[in-house]
């Protein structure tokens, strides 16, 4: 039977390489796969394109990636209160693509769902429309937003069974469930791995078809 459980975060990030595009789940700390943050650092990769809601805020989150200067570009909705990112942003050593939060998650969904893009009313008449195609439907103007894909999507789940079915905990679900559909390789850090059959089929949020790797968060 399918079993996608891997040993640890290091195994979960196996194959990541310089220049890859990486989605990281989480809104603030909730949903951020912290073991992955460190495992990616340990791999020594560089020039990543990071797709994430935030750019970190404490010393113990995505801030570490900016401190280590492994991110070339971030696609993000709210990189405020991110000290290390802000320094590099001011120095011009990191590129920022600022995307409204709902548009960010919808672009990720479009990537995972095989759509070529969508027409959004969000940003019409603002700087967020700059450089984007405008399409009028029934007399109303929309912006054409394009899908986002990633080489790796890393998210934080609550429980996963060994097949790779995943549930989330409270508001930690946020972007995680959507990102889990959009990475070429999807790895999920969970609180606990459970047996096949332990999860309620009605309450599984990410069915196993989307999930390539699962590992249990270290209790250390």
């Amino acid at each position, binding site marked *: 039977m399918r079993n996608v459980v891997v040993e640890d975060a290091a195994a979960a990030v196996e194959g990541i390489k310089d220049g890859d595009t990486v989605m990281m789940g989480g809104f603030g700390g909730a949903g951020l796969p912290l073991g992955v943050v460190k495992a990616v650092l340990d791999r020594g990769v560089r020039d990543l394109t990071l797709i994430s809601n935030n750019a970190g805020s404490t010393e113990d989150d995505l801030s570490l990636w900016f401190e280590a200067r492994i991110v070339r570009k971030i696609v993000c909705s709210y990189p405020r209160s991110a000290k290390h990112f802000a320094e590099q942003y001011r120095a011009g050593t990191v590129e920022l693509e600022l995307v409204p939060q709902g548009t960010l998650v919808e672009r990720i969904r479009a990537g995972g769902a095989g759509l070529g893009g969508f027409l959004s009313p969000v940003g019409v008449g603002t700087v967020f429309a700059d450089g984007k195609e405008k399409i009028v439907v029934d007399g109303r103007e929309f912006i054409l937003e394009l899908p986002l894909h990633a080489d790796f999507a890393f998210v934080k789940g609550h429980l996963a069974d060994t097949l790779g079915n995943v549930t989330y905990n409270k508001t930690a679900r*946020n972007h995680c469930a959507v990102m889990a559909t959009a990475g070429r390789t999807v790895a999920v850090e969970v609180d606990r791995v459970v047996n096949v059959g332990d999860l309620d089929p009605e309450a599984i949020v990410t069915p196993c078809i989307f999930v390539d790797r699962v590992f249990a968060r270290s209790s250390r």
Partner: protein
Amino acid sequence: MTPLSRDALARMVALHLPEQGFVNLGIGAPTHVADYLPAGSGVILHSENGILNVGPKPAAGEEDWDLINAGKMPISLRSGGSYFDSSLSFAMMRGGHLDVAVLGAFQVSKNGDLANWTTGDNGSPPGIGGAIDLAVGAKSIWVMMDHVTKDGRSRIVERCGYPLTARGVVTRIFTNLCIIDVTEDGLAVRALLDGLAIEALRDRTEAPLRVMGDPLTIRQDGSVA
């Protein structure tokens, strides 16, 4: 004439929310509106990170960092609440399912343009978050803000000087001096702080103001009569 305190402004907004309405309170000052909801209002609060029926902040020591609001502060879930992913959460917003979004603002123009995400390039990274999605999607967009800036300039303007969040979306403005409806015929004063003459309000307001009948009176505690 003392402008409303922040608490009184929050209370004034809270008293106006529709009973049993679905409401998103933006980060910052709007979040405090929750503290003044009348008992039994039945208002159901949404937070864009994926939760409906947000409850009060937990007691010290009871925080669960997987249960936070859009301001990344610990909250609780009321009975009958639910969790969902961001795509469904923003579908609620963009799809017009929220009755009211209460947002802070730097400026609102006479036709309801909203500027609330940046005052321009000051070298800091910009951040937009979900402000723009809320501003486009909710059925009613309410702004709450001080009527004038710290140096006395009107925040209610002919045309926004700051980068726009959305065009023509604001439906009502609550300030520490008044309540203004944004109508097709321009800005209409609906309520006025007790002791403030309409001409004094106009002196503090760049955009033209209409008055329909007798404006209601705003008391110092934020109640309106």
